[in-house]
């Protein structure tokens, strides 16, 4: 029975982890907590839904999965469109506000942008929940005591691939190295010839894409709803903080820990208190290690 809850937690944790990476990335490089990140998640899910609709819904399917090649294309398209949306948002709102040195302005502005983006979804797509496919996959046993659907395995697999890709991007490419440099010390990076504006743009692209993929993954395994990103936002923040804000690997770890802890808690306490578990865990970790699990020392 424990194994089943563990598997449930890993599936949810994968979506949270990808979302939290984008959040921590923008925090690190742009230096503010972006509340609009949740809405990028929702928009990503809806963008993919649009593309799937254009292809006439989900018809042919790949193996045991509930979707076909158009869906893979939809994920890529959603990532692109969410990146554009993030860049537009940056250009319209944050670019202007970055000139002021008051961090809280950016945070509040992002909160406003989040509300705007969320309600825009309701206007454009309506308040009802949507699904990529009307078919429901029946979970199959994959290990003794563990049942999952092929879609859930796909989601976990995709998350692993993206995390490895992100790691290679940050350590092996010029741009990735530049991003890490800016995150460590923006002024020093600028002095040594790194185009900070360019790095900021790419940060939005990477963060927006990861948010979109997380949204699609969540929509595939649960449902697509205008509120989905907003409802997930608290979990994203606690994952990022738990792992150590600014640390990419910390965010991944944080996401998995939050997902698994919430699902495992059902074994010990009533599910009615499940939402509290993630936050209690976060508080406990911060009391023991204020910089988060993988966070660097607080300066």
């Amino acid at each position, binding site marked *: *029975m424990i194994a089943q809850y563990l598997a449930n937690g890993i599936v949810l944790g994968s979506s949270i982890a990808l979302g939290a990476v984008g959040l921590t990335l923008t925090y690190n490089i742009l230096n503010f907590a972006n509340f609009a990140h949740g809405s990028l998640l929702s928009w990503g899910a809806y963008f993919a839904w649009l593309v799937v609709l254009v292809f006439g819904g989900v018809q042919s399917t790949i193996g045991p999965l509930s979707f076909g090649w158009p869906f893979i294309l939809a994920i890529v398209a959603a990532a692109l469109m969410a990146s554009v949306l993030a860049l537009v948002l940056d250009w319209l709102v944050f670019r202007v506000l970055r000139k002021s040195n008051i961090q809280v302005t950016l945070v509040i502005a992002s909160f406003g942008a989040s509300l705007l983006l969320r309600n825009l979804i309701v206007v454009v797509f309506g308040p*009802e929940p949507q699904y990529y496919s009307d078919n429901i*996959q029946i*979970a199959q046993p994959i290990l003794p005591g563990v049942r999952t659907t092929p879609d859930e395995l796909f989601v976990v697999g995709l998350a692993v691939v993206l995390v490895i890709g992100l790691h290679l991007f940050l350590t092996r490419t010029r741009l990735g190295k530049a991003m890490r440099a800016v995150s460590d010390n923006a002024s020093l990076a600028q002095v040594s010839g790194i185009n900070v504006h360019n790095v900021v743009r790419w940060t939005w692209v990477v963060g927006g894409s990861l948010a979109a993929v997380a949204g699609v993954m969540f929509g595939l395994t649960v449902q697509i709803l205008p509120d989905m990103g907003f409802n997930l936002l608290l979990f994203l923040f606690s994952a990022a903080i738990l792992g150590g804000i600014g640390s990419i690997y910390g965010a991944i770890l944080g996401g998995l820990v939050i997902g698994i802890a*919430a699902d495992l808690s059902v*074994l010990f306490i009533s599910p009615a208190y499940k939402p509290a578990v993630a936050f209690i865990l976060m508080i406990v970790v911060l009391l023991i290690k204020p910089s988060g699990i993988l966070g660097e020392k607080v300066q």
Partner: protein
Amino acid sequence: MKSRRITSSLVASAIMGVAALAPLAVQAKCTTTIGSVMALTGSLGALGQSIAKGAELAVDTVNKAGGVNGCDLKLSMLDDQTSPAVGVSAAKQLVDIHQVPAIVGALSSGVSMAILTSVTAPGKVVQISPSSTSPSFTELAKSGKTGGYWFRTTPSDALQGVAMAKLARENGLKRVAVLYLKNPYGEGLAGKFSEYFKKLGGKVTASVPYNPKQPSYRSEVSSALGGDPQAVFLIGYPGDGTTVAREWISSGGPQTFLLPDGLESQKFVDDVGAKYMKKVLGTAAGSVNTPSLKTFDSDFQKQFGNPPTQAYMTNAYDAVMVIALAMDKGHGTSADTVKNNIRGISGTAGTAIYAGAGQYEKALKLIKEGKRIHYVGASGELTFDKNGDVSGPMAIWTLKDKKVVQDRMMSVSTINKVLMKR
């Protein structure tokens, strides 16, 4: 969300416009406003949009027949977004600013309870809910905390829980898992069902609460699946209920569903997928086939161009009618007039008054002559007991050709027989 509110207010003003033009309308110089708080958006939004029309139809009917005490009746309706916090602030606005003597609503038991305990009971304003079925209201009324200002035109879930337990046993189910929304509605219904299912020889294999708006319900479903149930009794509203039901199916749970009134919704069935619901046993507040129901159906068709299909539309209609008649009977518009006269225009004594403008005119005449009347609602007899509860039959619903249909009624005496069982 905004656009919906505008649409519904447009509809409301259009109705008023029609009422003003109707030849029957007596020129009234004054207006009596009553309030209403309903879920027009949020997880109950799909049901609420329809239920609101039942109340609007009643207001129109009353005004066609000359209004309340010769004044036009006006319904000031606010959206509670199926959220207790929003509902309380809407009710406060109605009581403090519009100074309404009575509020029709809310729909969700959770919202109604919040409004009752923090606005209407302390503020001594009458509250009549068309659809809040939690047994906890009866408990509250028994302890005297409602001050007698609480009424509802739908039977309590104490009856629905019993009916569902009996229905499940009739269909040969022995082991049932309960997954319920953690609010007064879910807790009340789950509790009553479990109590009587056990008495009837069944076994509740797991009783698992869930919170609204969670990112996933996999673990809740996993723990409800332990104990090898034959069916699941899923208590909730269409929004999150859909996710839980899909998760249940996906996790390999048996596709036999026991569903309460909160999920009697075509949208819910369509979103989950009727092909995955092999067997559906549903309960909801039923109606006795009163002559009022026919009038309600035809009036509704005339007004809105489509037949009334949603549960609780008649209950909302009756709630408004009861308030209007109580005001007429007491020759006043205050909350206490409504409260003290509701039982004087319902029950079984005197001449029966049915739904519709003609019957309402007849009621006004009889009241003037000092004769006793009792209103027979479109939803049933409406005999309010000392706790503000009505008793009534339960409707049994199921799926036929992927459509939600009401099958039959389970009578009050059948339910009472189970209740007597020790």
